[in-house]
């Protein structure tokens, strides 16, 4: 385990991990049917799971619908649909 260095934490030195990345998604009725990764379009073979998180309504509301996808090449990806802005993002959950 890394020992505590007792260095004072500074917010500007904190770098969040696992930040969502923009992703191009083809959707039908708000459900993804294909996604583009590294300029390659992958068909969604199956939506393995979907769930909604709603949080922080008291400041900047967060409403996301996550989709755990199985792609046509066998890869698994987790994406979400931002229900506030309508944008799609790639993010491990």
């Amino acid at each position, binding site marked *: 385990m890394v020992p505590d260095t007792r260095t004072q934490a500074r917010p500007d030195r*904190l770098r969040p991990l696992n930040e969502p990345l923009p992703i191009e998604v083809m959707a039908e009725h708000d459900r993804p049917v294909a996604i583009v990764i590294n300029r390659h379009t992958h068909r969604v073979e199956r939506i393995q799971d979907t769930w909604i998180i709603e949080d922080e309504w008291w400041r900047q509301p*967060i409403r996301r619908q996550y989709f755990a996808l199985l792609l046509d090449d066998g890869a698994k990806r987790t994406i979400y649909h931002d229900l506030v802005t309508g944008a799609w993002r790639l993010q491990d959950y």
Partner: protein
Amino acid sequence: MPVVCLRIPWFALRIALLDQPQLDGRPLLLSNPQSGRAVVLDATPEALAKGIRPGMNLREASALCPTAVILVADPVRETTVANQVRERLEHLSPLVEPDAREQGCWYIDLKGLERHYGTSENATRRLIECVDPTLRARAGVAPGKFTARVAAGVATAGSIRVIALEEAPAFLAEASISWLPLPPDVIRQLERLGIPTLGAFTNLPARKVAARFGPAGREAWTLARGEDDRPVIPPPRTQSVREELAMPVPAVSREMLIIGLRQMVSRAFAKPELRGKHVRQVTLHAILEGERRSWERTLTLKEPCGSNRVVNALELRLQALEMTGPIEIVTLEFSGIVNEVARQAAFPLMGPRAAAPLTAAIHHLKHRYGLSPIYHVVEVEPWSRIPERRHALIAYDP
């Protein structure tokens, strides 16, 4: 494309009648007599005609109608019957969507069924036949889901009300404001403002409705005008694992119940479907001894959990449980099944011996670049449901 709304009004009461059909036609009340403050949860039209209203004290309701029969809700049976109806409907059409706000209400897209059954009425008749006649299902057929629901609401038991596209606005204009998908307090506010019908509601300017009632009000205003192009979207099929336990002796204490639950959780996680997996949600169904009574609790976990953490969470949740009767059968349903979430306790190379050279190397880098280019992972809000809030990198500066 026409949409069918198949509806079973007073669903919980009709379910109770499946076992006692001789009570059909009598004033019936749905209540929770075991709880501290017993109130009327629902009432049939025969009971409503006597002046009984949902929310009323049970004693007051009994005084108003001494012949009223009090029935107790059986949520486990309601869910089972609702699932059975949905499965039967799905044999006829792949596009079946249960209403999110009302149990005992389904939307079915008639796409393709008209060709098979000749007319949309024939197809709808076939859908009604999927439901036990005791449940008194009825249907509405209209171009949109909202109009179909209102049409099903005015149809009588076993009948079909068809609303064509051109007659939808006039039909909706006469309908009660209570059909709007808005919270009950907003509906009461509208009634107090002298807006009893959808027609009166749509006469208000859209921007004023949006300003007063927000986006939900604006959407309701559009629906009330018959403008509804929402498609029928079947809910996704999620994998779940069920584990049932018939208690050797009816469980009367929380401790007995928890012993049974521990056994069930370990049995469930030994099954191939759950081995090496974590779950996000657990639903506990309990069927009580004797008369048909049941209760259920759903536990949504903050993050996917394995068997030990599921047991701890269940114990914590059941601490405040009030046992309303001896439990005969318990069922646990695990859903939101995901792969095991790994937790790295320590970086294997970071033993005490490796730390000293690393510290020296960081000092060298710091002298050269002015700051430490090595970061370490810290927990920020590990419990957060927002993934990017859980961990962060912070400069490692020994």
